[in-house]
């Protein structure tokens, strides 16, 4: 295979990880909303934990993005 096309295919495969991180972020906010609607009084106190979970889920997707960018522009 041509190395340049292999590079682009690899970047495309790395982009799948970003979609999986989107599932994770949606899961974080969806679960928070589910719990917050059951007990709205406790929801405000948990916003810090909500954003910690969001940051963790998002970071892994951003690493997939870094891999794609490294393949496209650096390798």
């Amino acid at each position, binding site marked *: 295979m041509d190395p340049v096309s292999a590079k682009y295919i690899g970047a495309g495969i790395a982009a799948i990880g970003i979609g999986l991180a989107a599932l994770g972020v949606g899961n974080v906010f969806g679960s928070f909303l589910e719990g917050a609607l059951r007990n709205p009084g406790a929801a405000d106190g948990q916003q810090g934990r909500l954003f910690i979970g969001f940051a963790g889920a998002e970071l892994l997707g*951003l690493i997939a993005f870094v891999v794609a960018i490294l393949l496209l522009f650096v390798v």
Partner: protein
Amino acid sequence: MAAGKIDPMHQFLVQPISNRLAVGGYDLTFTNSALFMFVVLGLLWLFMLGGMRRQLVPGRWQVAVEGMVGFVDNMMRTSVGPEGRRFVPYMFSLFMFLLIANLVGVFPLAIIPGFHTFAVTSHITVTAVLAFFSFGIVLAVGFWRHGLHFFSLFVPHGAPWWLMPLIVPVEFISFMVRPFSLGLRLFVAMTAGHILLEVFGSFVVSGLNSGGAIGPVVSFLSFVMIVGVSALELLVCAIQAYVFALLTSLYINDAVNLH
């Protein structure tokens, strides 16, 4: 620029805007990155200047400044406790610098030809230095308050002793990787958003230039997408500054209270 491919990475280029200046082997040239850091500093200074009047009945501006200070103060109190108030000056500077730098980065100055704002936080050199400041404060506070007892951070309570050879290295690695993940998150989130905006902007231009029947449709759809992505970017700017400050406050909590 309109003819040919539009390079989405061109906006991140650090360009010198003064004469070359080298001191002792280090390149100290004044660049557009440094210029926009001064712009952010100036904006932050103006923002605080308007709110420091100490009126008994605060005006709108003073309420805005007091609201931001109260927000950071509340964040430190909930995540660190009463000890956390000592770190409010650092956390406030960090949070406001990142927030204003992110917002200046997406400010649409490029509608004036020849000008474009430079997103300071889209460079890992800037975000990593801020992350290492936070990490250095965690280390300094931890060792100053607890001495060598600070290493008990790596030994969670209630874990069985035979798991220690596994848990301690894992905790150590997760502790050491913190500054990198902190800097990387902000830098990549800002870079990704700016590339996305630039790519859709290039779709608008090349769609109009293509001359075909489908070109204007693509341009219009891309333009609608830019409006939506810009709104999302404003949200991401605020969330990333908040997440950076929140994680720093959690790490400081580890150093102060040793879980």
